[in-house]
């Protein structure tokens, strides 16, 4: 029984602080007072009407989408090349692909600050997109190469021997089987960019303020209560996402 009690306490430690942001978002207080002195929806109205918060939200979505696209364009062919072929220097290639995961984000952030600053790309959506795209490579690669390793190549051989060309085989056999893995890889890349804070803080400047950067600045400089609204919306999105993922997983394990 003791392990269960300890586990539940651990889970409460994880959960309770996150849930605190929900009542905070309805609070009338102008600072971070908890429990709230009163409740209203005023800060929700402020979030949905103020440019100051909507723009970073939009920026984050655009950057995450761009970074995800860039990452997928690089990672999908790379995973095929890496998993299906043997070649010299494979260890080195693996190290290169994993490098953005190994290097601490604050070091990468400093690097992009200097490098993109030289290229006049700090403070632009493109700059942050490229940096996030690189940082998302390892995660997407891990997911997609794992899917590819589990792929039974006999399916392709069967298609080829039945007369399908390499292209038709790829489109009608390989891709459909790999689609779930690819989608998960893309989702991870998207979220890796959407949640990324350090690089955005360093290189976002005034022109490419992402949501985490805006939250960081609002905590540091002004204590804007709208941050509770944003946090609550983000937590709700995560809860929804996790519940959907769990129910999908349950359905697939039941089917199997």
């Amino acid at each position, binding site marked *: 029984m003791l392990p269960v009690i300890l586990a539940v306490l651990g889970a409460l430690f994880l959960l309770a602080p996150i849930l605190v942001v929900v009542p905070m978002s309805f609070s009338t207080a102008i600072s971070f*007072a908890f429990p709230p002195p009163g409740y209203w929806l005023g800060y929700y109205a402020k979030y949905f009407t103020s440019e100051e918060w909507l723009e970073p939200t939009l920026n984050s979505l655009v950057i995450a989408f761009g970074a995800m696209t860039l990452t997928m364009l690089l990672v999908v062919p790379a995973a095929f090349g890496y998993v299906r072929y043997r070649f010299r220097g494979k260890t080195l290639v693996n190290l290169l692909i994993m*490098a953005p995961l190994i290097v601490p984000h604050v070091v990468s952030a400093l690097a992009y600050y200097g490098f993109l600053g030289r290229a006049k790309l700090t403070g632009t959506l493109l700059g942050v997109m490229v940096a996030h795209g690189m940082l998302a490579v390892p995660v997407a690669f891990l997911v997609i190469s794992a899917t590819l390793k589990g792929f039974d190549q006999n399916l392709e051989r069967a298609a080829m021997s039945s007369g399908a060309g390499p292209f038709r085989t790829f489109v009608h056999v390989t891709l459909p089987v790999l689609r779930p893995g690819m989608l998960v890889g893309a989702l991870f890349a998207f979220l890796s960019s959407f949640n990324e*804070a350090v690089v955005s803080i360093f290189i976002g400047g005034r022109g490419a303020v992402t949501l985490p950067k805006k939250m960081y600045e609002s905590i540091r400089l002004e204590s804007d209560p709208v941050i509770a609204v944003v946090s609550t919306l983000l937590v709700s999105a995560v809860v929804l996402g996790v519940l959907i993922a769990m129910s999908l997983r349950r359905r697939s394990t039941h089917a199997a």
Partner: protein
Amino acid sequence: MAGELSGAALRRETAVRGASRHATAWLLLAPSCLALVLLFVVPIAYVLLLSVTDPRLSVAHYQRIFTVPVYTRVMVNTFVTSLIVTALCLVIGYPLAYVMARRAGWVSTLLLTVVAMSFWTGFLVRTYAWLVILGSKGPVAAAYGALGLGPAPQLLFSTFSSTLGMTHILLPYMVLALYAAMKKIDANHLKAAASLGARPAAAFREVFLPLSLPGVVNGSLLVFVTCLGFFVTPVLLGTPRDMMISQLINQQIEELLAFGFASAVAVVLLIATCAVLAIYNHYAGLDRLWG
């Protein structure tokens, strides 16, 4: 002779196909490798360069880091804080992962849901939550008042708050690493131990615990390494008096515009991280960490 000829032809054909297969592999890998070299390795190399050339060619920055007490303290503090956070994550995370892995049904599903939720919730949301909880108008301060303990001590902007925040944020990583290792442990080992007369506590200590050690090592490494370079939480919850490396980098850039020195600090952080990973790689192989 005919056989020999066809053998040679076959060999030639495989050699040609082998070469073209090589070319295909490199064609597929070229875009990502090129992009990573140009848009990741080169920027990092630029940091290395700046650390010894800005404002002039010298290794003075590195000498300062390792001789000026203020900076050596930052290094030691980062190391010690990371160790404490790792230990806390392990202590809190182990029973959580244990129950998730060993229990079937709704308890483990519920715990897994909680862990996944906190894993995907952004660092800033969770750091903000701690600002509310530990703040002077927060629930902890209110509890102090309600219990008649007088005014609450200053909890925020201290080593305590930043350690607590980082533990909270990194705990899911630890739990998932432990869970992955524990899930692989064959339940029959424990049944065998029990049938041989081992009590549950002994079976746990002699069988389960040793088999879960790979997860302990993986999780600890992940948490420790992330903690070394952790930025957002120490900056927002910590204190400049007990700085961590990332706070020092931020301060050097934001307040002093000292790129050369900030770069040198970053390089030290990078080397420390790589050293820890290299030790792990030597004993276990990095593939196990990603896998």
